[in-house]
């Protein structure tokens, strides 16, 4: 460079917003391997979420409840429509379905211990019910999945509720995956598969299609279980109004609605990030479907997908949910992505908070693995205690907000307690934009 050139101002290198470094890295990875990226977890992209809502709190028009004196109830009963034995929970935060296979036996035990200590339910996954899980879970929901791995009538009758899984938020319309690394002897036996193969779970049920068939399937399950336990229907967030209405029509006691932030053990990144609706966008249409059918609160609604705090719990319930379910957050409470494993995350080419190669079975925290040495790192008693603490904190947080809004039960939270920080959130949650009495699509406004 000569003296003249040095005097010319240089342009600053500009990274393309379209071809960003992460995008370019994925293009290079795809070109090198010829296979799409598979990972665990839910959508990482930023979408309108509960953070975009605020509670209004009490004012002259409403008075609050005293936080240290006046009771704010948190109990919830699920399955009141048909089941002879509805599930009664102390708190409205449940543990979502996660399989033995995707998770270690220690992690499943810890989930059961933590949930039971907090007075709530946990849920099996795509792989059947293990004795440890049943033994450590005071309330266990048994998932009825397209793969039917491990399905048998004895476990059905041992369950406190049955959850027919039609879809999940991370991959609505897609089936499950468990790569060969995690098909250990025990997992293979439970799933009736050869050890070490890539296990693909079907995307739809093998013996029914459509809502009319679902109604008959629910009848069969009720007849097998003597109409004793609630039957949930879980759907991924895609067409929440119609899916909720059809689940109710088919005879569900409870609808579980999972938004796109909901996690998975393993699926294609393109699926996780580009299919489905944000959780926030799912709740009001589902509640409207229940209200239109006169079934709101008679058929309970459980919302999942990105629930992290008591504020999220309170917001979901204010929008009309009866309870929420957590998956990823529960794993983090157990110890997933803990900074104490940073050196090992680095060896795996990732970092704390970003580790999502759950399908590879090399989880340093011993949670998403079938490696006996790694799994032994997780103490199920201690991890269960952490989960219990976390569930208790979430509940206390939700109670704090409810009392501030003047409610003596979390179920009394209502949309009128909320406002939105963004137009998008206002439209999705159908609550006013902060400082206004308007939201996009509000009836009678012409917008």
């Amino acid at each position, binding site marked *: 460079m000569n003296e003249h050139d040095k005097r010319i101002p240089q342009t600053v290198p500009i990274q393309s917003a379209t071809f960003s470094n992460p995008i370019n890295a994925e293009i290079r990875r795809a070109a090198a*391997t*010829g*296979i799409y990226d598979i990972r665990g977890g839910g959508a990482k992209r930023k979408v309108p979420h509960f953070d975009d809502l605020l509670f209004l709190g009490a004012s002259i028009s409403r008075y609050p409840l005293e936080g240290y004196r006046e009771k704010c109830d948190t109990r919830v009963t699920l399955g009141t429509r048909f089941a002879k034995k509805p599930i009664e929970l102390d708190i409205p935060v449940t543990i979502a379905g996660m399989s033995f296979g995707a998770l270690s036996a220690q992690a499943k035990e810890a989930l059961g211990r933590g949930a039971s200590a907090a007075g709530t339910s946990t849920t099996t996954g795509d792989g059947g019910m293990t004795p440890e899980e049943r033994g450590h879970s005071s309330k266990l929901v048994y998932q009825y999945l397209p*793969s*039917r791995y491990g*399905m*048998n*009538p004895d476990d*059905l009758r041992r369950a406190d509720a049955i959850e027919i899984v039609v879809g999940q938020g991370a991959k609505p319309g897609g089936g499950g995956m468990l*790569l*060969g690394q995690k098909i250990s002897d025990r997992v293979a036996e439970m*799933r*009736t*598969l*050869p050890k*070490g*193969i*890539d296990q*693909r779970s*079907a995307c739809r049920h*093998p*013996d*029914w299609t459509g809502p009319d*068939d679902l109604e*008959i*399937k629910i*009848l*069969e399950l009720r*007849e*097998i*279980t*003597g*109409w004793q336990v609630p039957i949930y229907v879980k759907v991924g967030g895609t067409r929440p109004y119609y899916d909720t209405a059809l689940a109710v029509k088919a005879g569900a006691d409870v609808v579980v609605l999972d938004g796109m932030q909901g996690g998975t053990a393993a699926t294609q990144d393109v699926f996780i990030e580009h299919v489905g609706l944000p959780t926030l966008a799912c709740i009001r249409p589902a509640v409207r479907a229940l209200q239109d059918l006169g079934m709101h609160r008679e058929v309970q609604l459980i919302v999942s997908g990105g629930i992290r705090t008591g504020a999220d719990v309170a917001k979901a319930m204010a929008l009309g949910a009866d309870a929420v379910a957590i998956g990823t957050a529960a794993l983090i409470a157990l110890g997933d992505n803990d900074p104490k494993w940073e050196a090992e995350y680095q060896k795996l080419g990732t970092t704390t908070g970003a580790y999502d190669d759950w399908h590879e079975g090399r989880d340093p925290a011993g949670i998403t693995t079938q490696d006996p040495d790694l799994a032994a790192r997780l103490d199920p008693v201690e991890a269960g205690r952490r989960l219990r603490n976390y569930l208790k904190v979430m509940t206390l947080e939700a109670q704090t907000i409810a009392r501030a809004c003047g409610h003596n039960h979390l179920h009394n939270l209502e949309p009128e307690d909320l406002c939105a920080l963004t137009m998008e959130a206002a439209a999705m949650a159908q609550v006013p934009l902060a400082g206004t009495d308007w939201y996009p699509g509000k009836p009678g406004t012409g917008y």
Partner: protein
Amino acid sequence: MQTIDLATQTLREMNATLQAQKDQTNATQWEIENPRGAHAIAVGLDAPIEVTVRGSTGYYCAGMNKQATVHVTGSAGPGVAENMMSGTVIIDGDASQYAGATGRGGLLVIKGNAASRCGISMKGIDIVVQGNIGHMSAFMGQAGNLVVCGDAGDALGDSLYEARLFVRGSVKSLGADCIEKEMRPEHLEILRDLLARAGIDAKPEEFRRYGSARKLYNFDVDNAAAY
């Protein structure tokens, strides 16, 4: 012989009565009259009893059966003997789609034809069909034996795992990763036993065996066209 008449008793009463039978029950012979195509007849049984259904059934007859023998004198609707664990289910007529779906054990005998997806996702059940079977049968079949004395429709054994398929007649087409395999003496023995238990007069030597090529067991981008 105990008789339950579905013209006068409810489905719940019938299933509750049959499900209440224990291993040592003396009431081992049961007859269901007037099924009239009802769904979920004789589901969730778990005792060594014999139940004869006089007529045709709707969806999921004998679903999740354990130990019991359920004999339907007519035809069966979709999902007969779905997820059966053990015991025997016999259909004198035809069976609709998904017969024996996800079954884990026991023997399902269909004396007529079976529609599409017979034995879908089977996990150990033995199914013997005297007639023909429809398309996509034994899709993702994991374990057990499917014996077809007639013809098989399109895409037999698509994405098959370790289930064994035996067909005496023609196969319209094989599904992804399903191939014809050598019939060895042990397979002839399996066939002979199943045909005898099903009460079907056919020679094992007349059948061909199909199974998984096991090329899709672990993902390989060069097989992407098969997915």
